[in-house]
């Protein structure tokens, strides 16, 4: 299991260090040796004094001359897992054959928990909250085993204010929630207005050849729910999943003709731990008791019949050795009544570019020398429209034999529909103990499609 957890700043200084296992060279033990008579004695005494794990990571990874080529590093039979958030390094250390996927999931979770408590993960925030972080680490990692790490539960008994006197009932309520089957929700939540928000957030990814052939395309989507519901509501979520629709279609031929075409084939989906997976596996129904507030209900992926909101047609021509002519056409491919926003096309330029002239029909275009790209921005664009940019790029003559790699042209945008075609059919709420019904709940649904990695090679 995880033997220790360290947090460093970008210089490699330790901000947080928590050792769970004795096999990791513990800092306290080592420094005690060092402080008594200097570092060299320590080495002589121990013969082969284990290198302090904290230092080993700093020297071999953070201060390494070359960029680290793997998120898992093995130094002297000790394995280090690291993730970086802005310029903060989080490293988990172990000497055993641990579940590597679990360690990374835990590190991400740890970041989520910290963010939920004090916002952005920065050196400043970590130093300001180090006592809290130690308290959290004590709770969510015991002897290196991850424990309940749902912020909903943690916030009931780990607070920055310290717990005021609790009654016995309150205490046992906390412990039963932390260990319980529904560890993500506490009992006795009350709202005057029962309300829920569903956001279908999709990112559409594309890799297209210069000739307009789709090399790969997929949508990865998330359904994010914000629930403000009283009690312990039982929810059921339905969407136009092809398998479900076809199953129902057998019963009523009527419905097949209505919705048969609109259903989508989902390649795979994963759910928040509140969803009953065995029920999904057997009946393909999505039922759950939601956490309070915002959470990610599900993630899914589709590859078939994707609506590609934009098509990019590049044309790059080399005129002699010192000039490039670039022309890029973008076409919007959705209902004319809808508006795409925040459109940005990024056209890479060679490193030896000396000057660029651009002409575009719509929006603004600029050559950004520091980013080696022409950035073309359009605020809004309706469906079934077309726009064009042309640029002349002057190049400095070089004797560099290496050819320019021609990175792909990438695009960013936001559209108000789901490129996968996913539709929410229903979200039913049942709370038998309290007197509100499904009809009393106010529900909001919103679709946002964003560009993921949307690239066209040129």
């Amino acid at each position: 299991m995880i033997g220790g957890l360290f947090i460093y700043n970008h210089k490699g200084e330790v901000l947080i260090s928590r050792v769970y296992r004795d096999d990791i060279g513990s800092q306290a033990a080592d420094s005690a040796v060092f402080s008594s008579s200097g570092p060299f004695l320590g080495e002589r005494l121990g013969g082969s004094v284990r290198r302090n794990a904290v230092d080993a990571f700093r020297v071999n990874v953070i201060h390494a001359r070359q960029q680290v080529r793997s998120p898992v590093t093995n130094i002297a039979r000790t394995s280090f897992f690291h993730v970086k958030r802005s310029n903060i390094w989080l490293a988990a250390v172990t000497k055993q054959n641990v579940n590597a996927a679990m360690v990374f999931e835990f590190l991400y979770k740890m970041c989520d928990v910290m963010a939920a408590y004090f916002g952005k993960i920065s050196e400043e925030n970590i130093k300001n909250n180090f006592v809290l972080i130690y308290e959290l680490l004590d709770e969510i990692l015991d002897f290196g085993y991850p424990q309940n790490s749902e912020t909903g539960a943690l916030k009931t008994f780990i607070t920055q204010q310290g717990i005021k006197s609790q009654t016995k009932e309150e205490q046992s309520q906390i412990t039963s929630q932390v260990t319980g089957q529904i560890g993500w929700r506490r009992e006795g939540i009350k709202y005057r207005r029962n309300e829920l928000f569903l956001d279908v957030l999709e990112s559409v990814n594309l890799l297209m050849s210069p000739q307009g052939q789709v090399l790969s395309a997929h949508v990865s989507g998330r359904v994010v729910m914000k629930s403000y519901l009283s009690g312990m509501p039982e929810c059921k979520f339905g969407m136009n999943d092809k398998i479900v629709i076809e199953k129902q279609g057998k019963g009523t031929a009527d419905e097949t003709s209505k919705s048969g075409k609109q259903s989508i084939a989902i390649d795979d989906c994963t759910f928040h731990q509140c969803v009953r997976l065995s029920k999904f596996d057997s009946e393909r129904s999505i039922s759950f008791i939601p956490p309070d507030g915002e959470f990610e209900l599900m993630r899914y992926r589709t590859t078939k019949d994707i609506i590609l909101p934009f098509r990019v047609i590049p044309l790059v021509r080399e005129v002699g050795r010192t000039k490039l002519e670039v022309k890029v056409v973008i076409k919007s491919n959705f209902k004319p009544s809808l508006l795409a926003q925040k459109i940005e096309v990024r056209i890479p330029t060679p490193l030896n570019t000396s000057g660029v002239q651009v002409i575009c029909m719509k929006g603004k275009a600029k050559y950004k020398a520091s980013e080696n790209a022409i950035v073309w921005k359009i605020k809004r664009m309706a469906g079934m429209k077309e726009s064009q940019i042309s640029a002349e790029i002057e190049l400095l003559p070089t004797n560099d034999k290496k050819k320019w790699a021609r990175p792909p042209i990438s695009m960013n945008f936001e559209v108000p529909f789901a490129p996968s075609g996913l539709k929410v059919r229903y979200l039913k709420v049942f709370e038998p103990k309290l007197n509100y019904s499904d009809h009393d709940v106010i529900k909001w649904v919103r679709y946002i499609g964003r560009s993921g990695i949307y690239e066209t090679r040129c």
Partner: protein
Amino acid sequence: MTDSKYFTTTKKGEIFELKAELNSDKKEKKKEAVKKVIASMTVGKDVSALFPDVVNCMQTDNLELKKLVYLYLMNYAKSQPDMAIMAVNTFVKDCEDPNPLIRALAVRTMGCIRVDKITEYLCEPLRKCLKDEDPYVRKTAAVCVAKLHDINAQLVEDQGFLDTLKDLISDSNPMVVANAVAALSEIAESHPSSNLLDLNPQSINKLLTALNECTEWGQIFILDCLANYTPKDDREAQSICERVTPRLSHANSAVVLSAVKVLMKFMEMLSKDLDYYGTLLKKLAPPLVTLLSAEPELQYVALRNINLIVQKRPEILKHEMKVFFVKYNDPIYVKLEKLDIMIRLASQANIAQVLAELKEYATEVDVDFVRKAVRAIGRCAIKVEQSAERCVSTLLDLIQTKVNYVVQEAIVVIKDIFRKYPNKYESVIATLCENLDSLDEPEARAAMIWIVGEYAERIDNADELLESFLEGFHDESTQVQLQLLTGIVKLFLKKPTETQELVQQVLSLATQDSDNPDLRDRGYIYWRLLSTDPVAAKEVVLAEKPLISEETDLIEPTLLDELICYIGTLASVYHKPPSAFVEGGRGVVHKSLPPRTASSESAESPETAPAGAPPGEQPDVIPAQGDLLGDLLNLDLGPPVSSPPLTTSSVQMGAVDLLGGGLDSLMGDEPEGIGGTNFVAPPTAAVPASLGAPIGSGLSDLFDLTSGVGTLSGSYVAPKAVWLPAMKAKGLEISGTFTRQVGSISMDLQLTNKALQVMTDFAIQFNRNSFGLAPAAPLQVHAPLSPNQTVEISLPLSTVGSVMKMEPLNNLQVAVKNNIDVFYFSTLYPLHILFVEDGKMDRQMFLATWKDIPNENEAQFQIRDCPLNAEAATSKLQSSNIFTVAKRNVEGQDMLYQSLKLTNGIWVLAELRVQPGNPSCTLSLKCRAPEVSQHVYQAYETILKN
């Protein structure tokens, strides 16, 4: 209020100030001080001097302060054990606190303080907490047992905590179950033999129920534990799989991967004809693909695992090539892994797409990635024959880019393409030759030289090209030097007239001016060959080369199977078994896939299913375990196989020189070292192809013995046992036995190559042993041993080697070397192979000796279950050189007086009492060296029972 100020106090005398603050009356000030102490501790300052003052703050009802003090204690208790005792009282008191959070905190912290004196006090509170009414306390106590076990394993066993922990598996709270499982799994790892987890259908059912209810982390613990279970039949395997598959939709990637591990392992037991098998295969692909949309670090873990899964079951992801296409912004570690998987998935159906991608990658920025992409193009050519032409032309395009490292990489792979498709693409040689000057890496230079030498007859200026390399001969790396030597000799053999001078030059450079023994030896051999027999030289140097295989870097099947059992863990990320990176005893237990069972009926007793018996369970012959060989033989198996009557010619043939007497002086004392790549294999004794012994793994040998062939002449021969499992020897499996025939001892070996690589250059050596056993001839393995091939060899032994007393006496330590590595194993030989033919003593002498040997040297043994009469016993023993000197009948008992002599001249006298109708007989042994008695008894038992 911010805490960051605590990090900035660096004044002198700060310790004193802190001390004062810690002893302050004001609560707030105390808390501030403790925070400062913790901050100093974090940045690595030594604040252990404040120990008593901090501990004084422990008595508080402020939970936050208490936690800080506990944190301090965990860090420094070990360096201040005496003072740590001061804290014990508070801990014990806190374990009784009405607040469950405080009870749990106390028991959790106490387990982290690794001081023996404190550990003693921990037992009672822990026992109470394990049975606490609050599940939060119980789940914390469960982990505490694992902590305590890490400090003092014996204490945990003595106090019966393991049983309590086992009970917690049936707890009503899923989180308690999960933590108990995690703790037990870890404890079980350090006790590989104990049946701690005791998984049976009932407990599995409990785990599967808890699986649906516990946290994501708990699900991982449970799934990882399930993966260690071996279902009793395919039905059980299927029902577990059905209950595990829903986990594939979990948002946590680790849950998904652990579920994949369970499924991949249990699938092994399902019949491929089953509908369910196909369904399961289909269900596995989507979640694996989804893992690729996780964060990059997890993608990396997933890709390393997919790499294994694709090798084990290529059918799962064969249609998913596109998802492995590299994205421009992927981190480099993700890119390299994706590329690797793309090559594995490349097939005729998708090769066009793959090639287009690879060509794209070859223009990227990262040098390693570009190199790998170029190499991948070559591998595609070798893997998919139809694409070879397109690959070659792509590579030529890349060479035209003149980017230095691209050109070099391309030349290296083109060499392999030439090897795979000889005489097909030589038209490109001209283009390659144009780039000769830009090659600065040894591998590329060597490849180019190889090409020039190999096709010297088609390259007009081959001599000039090679000569140009020769100028800086001594600055080249060994790889290039060796290649240049061979290349020029090839050229000379093809065009002898113009290149005599050149070959002279290289030979003298290699032999006279070089310090490298490999180079020098190869040079001498070529020289001698060329000067004595040019025809033979041609046969050797220009010999037909074996084809190279399609898949070059597959993981060995045994290792792959083991790694599949470790999906999701570090082992699967490193592609190494845990023993390669975990210190100490932990995790060294080999895991292996379960055997495929046809149906529940035939698998009633899994230990008799020999074909798939996991290698880990095979009896390793370890000297410390005493007479394991005897144990094996006591299994009461059928009659033995006869030893194959090997011709003694092998003994003489063994001495045949590799290259004729003339080279003796050059070869020095290391004859096996010169088996260079191009040499003919040494002549070997014809090993009879159809030997009596069945081929297969050691256990199956034991169980497959059905035919009863009696011993022909010579002593009893034990069936072959596995001495060196493939797992421990990089794919080489050795099983064997000892025989004694007409006065000569030999070791009958069976070598099986379970690796993917051809094995050559075998040699064997014994450590000094009690009776001076030593090989009488070198180990003769005819030709290289190709994958999955088995050879049988009889190695003649002498007893004139150096002597050292071993423990046990009949322990023999053996080293076997091949081209891959040197492997060590030890085995116990039966003593009767040392019984010489002239071991019959005359009666008078026997009587005198019997009296002469003091009585304390007499040892008595019982041989049970041996329903033989005196005659049968006599003849049986006689064939193993135990001679009956006299026979008496006393009160219905047959007394046999027997003698035998060991190779080193030790006489052993015996009295064997056989009672008709009584299956056991009594053996009394007298010998001047009483330590052999035990082993002689074992020999008796072995001989009489078979």
